């Protein structure tokens, strides 16, 4: 167990004459025993970052250190790490026991009896003790996944690397394994880096999440921070399902003018903007108020296009004004009935709007949380896990 840090880590791939920057100058400090999720869309550099930590790819520049020791020039064999691959990469000709023992045989001086004991212990922890003499081909996807985890935990490494380990499981098993993995990491207390493209996994599993895009680190923070106080438009749009609604607008004094509507900014937000600036207004679907009172004159007139029931809540897709395509998504209570084609008015509460600079995408203003204490409490509780 040890802290892990990346300093100015960069990876450039050469493809013929072209240079592709896969990871661009990433700084990341991960504390001992922390569970950090690297999340981002395909090609954001998250897997390359993980492979550099594992030693499978060599960084073009920058350093990587585990427990204060620079390891970027060491081969994977000389780093005290264990990795779970997306395909599991189990050795097909070996039994489960052979798979789990392989790493210990190759990287430690343990006797056969010690190895056997360690493997059996780990298998019992994961509930796969009855599968030890089977070959991977005879196991289900979930069982193979556990063996891959087992192969990693028997090594008792300083750092655990997980590359989309749950993506080959069905939805129900994935949710179950998510909890189990968190529990396991908590018990073992091993510094863990988890790569995923799934923002739900990132939000629910990480002590902290690092959001990457285009090879750059966009934001590093607790899930709650990243969700409620996104550093930029990308993070705001990436986290949350359905995604945050965005509208291009121009600041005109204390008013935002967009194609579809004008929006009066309260003084404290207006103070952060300059007159005439191009901005992006962001609002999360669950923050939007919808009024179906025909007499109301507040808010923006809209027409309901489609209502998707999710059970506990409904996703409502709306057309603003006389638009032909829906541009706004709102979440409403599952018990509330709104019909397709109905005319309503939508209102964006001023304490839940986000404002971003249109050019740089940087956040100008993030929502004001009414119960900040509660959110911080959840945040710290997760970090302490």
């Amino acid at each position, binding site marked *: 167990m040890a802290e892990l840090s990346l300093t100015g880590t960069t990876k450039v791939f050469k493809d013929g004459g072209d240079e592709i920057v896969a990871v661009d100058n990433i700084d990341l400090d991960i504390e001992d025993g922390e569970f950090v999720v690297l999340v981002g869309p395909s090609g954001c550099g998250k897997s390359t970052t993980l492979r550099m930590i*594992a*030693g*499978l790819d060599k960084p073009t520049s920058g350093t990587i250190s585990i427990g204060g020791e620079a390891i970027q020039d060491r*081969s*994977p*064999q000389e780093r005290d*790490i*264990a*990795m779970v*691959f*997306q*395909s599991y*990469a*189990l*050795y*097909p*000709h070996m039994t489960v026991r052979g798979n789990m023992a*392989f*790493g210990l045989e*190759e*990287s430690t001086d343990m006797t056969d009896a010690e190895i056997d004991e360690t493997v059996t212990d780990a298998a019992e922890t994961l509930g796969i003790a009855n599968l030890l003499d089977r070959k991977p081909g005879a196991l289900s996807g979930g069982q193979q996944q556990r063996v891959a985890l087992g*192969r990693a935990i028997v*090594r008792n490494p300083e750092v655990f690397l997980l590359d989309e380990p749950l993506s080959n499981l069905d939805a129900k098993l994935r949710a179950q394994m998510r909890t189990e993995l968190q529990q396991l990491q908590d018990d073992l207390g091993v510094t863990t880096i988890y790569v995923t493209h799934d923002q739900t996994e990132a939000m629910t599993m990480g002590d902290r999440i690092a959001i990457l895009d285009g090879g750059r680190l966009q934001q590093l923070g607790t899930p709650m921070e990243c969700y409620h106080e996104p550093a930029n438009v990308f993070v705001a749009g990436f986290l949350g399902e359905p995604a945050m609604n965005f509208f291009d607008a121009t600041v005109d004094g204390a008013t935002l003018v967009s194609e579809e509507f004008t929006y009066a900014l309260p003084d404290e937000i207006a103070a952060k903007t300059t007159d005439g600036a191009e901005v992006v207004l962001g609002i999360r679907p669950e923050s939007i108020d919808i009024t179906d009172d025909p007499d109301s004159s507040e808010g923006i007139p809209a027409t309901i296009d489609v209502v998707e029931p999710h059970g506990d809540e409904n996703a409502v897709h709306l057309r603003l004004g006389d638009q032909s395509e829906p541009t706004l998504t709102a979440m409403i209570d599952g018990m509330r009935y709104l019909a397709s084609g109905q005319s309503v008015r939508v209102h964006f509460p001023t304490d839940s709007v986000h404002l971003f600079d249109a050019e740089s995408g940087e956040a100008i203003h993030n929502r004001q949380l009414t119960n900040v204490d509660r959110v911080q409490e959840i945040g710290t509780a997760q970090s302490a896990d």
Partner: protein
Amino acid sequence: MSKPTQTRAENVARMLPELNYWRIALALVITFFFAFFIAPIWTGLVTSFKTGAAVTATTPFVPPGPGGFTLEKWGRAIDHLSTGFINSLIMTVPSTVVTVFLGSTAAYGLTLVDWGKRAQFAVLVLFLVGIFIPYQAVLVPLSDFWINIFPLVEVLAPVWELEFMEPAHARLLSLTITHVVYGIPLCMLLFRGYYLTLSDELVEAAKIDGASITTIYRRIILPLSKPMIGVVFIYQFTAIWNEFLFSLTLIGSSSSPAATVTLVLSGLGTDLSGIDFGLRMAGALFAALPTLIIYALFAEQFAKGLAADN
């Protein structure tokens, strides 16, 4: 107003076994090819048990009658060929094993080991060129090499003092090494195709587990290569066992103590009095035995290997 739901013809058709025209055609084609391939072998087999008189008196594929049957041809064939047979085994088995091993390690180094894509490609091109060098083009330089540049007879001089060893055996060793060198490129290519289908993550997982390049080969890649080893072993064994041109060039004469079975077979059963068909057939079948045995032993792996390769 109910009508019979089936006509008479339909009822008859239902009683016949289910015959599908495709299946009938397939059966006919298979029968034809079976006959096509088995006929010469069968003819050879029955001829090898006939006396000289029976060969001329009976139709080739008809088994000999009680008076025309003899085991004498087989006795003579085995007698004549046994030294060549043993020489061939001494040459073929080690050269096949070594070729398969070197071919697979070369393929491993060119596919699953990371040491620069360009360099790997350059080496691969060399191997590919090796496949296309015709035998005839190297015969003269080859014999020149083994006689003048690297004369094994002189290099290994003390060895010929030992019992059963004769200087001529140096030629058998040259032949063995030549077959290894000539066999590596194609074996490498066969293994390469197979290794490209193996997942890179398997090797990466082993690296992270702390295994060195040689350990990964020995404990992961080699055990996974079994099906391909079957294919390459059969192919290489058959090619080397049946090879004639290099044997003729490097050993020269069928009367040499180092002569291989193919060399001896070429002169078997021919003399001034004519061709002894029975003896030639017995010799040919005897000489073909090892390849048949190898096919039988590796048949399962051969089939698996072909399936895996496609």
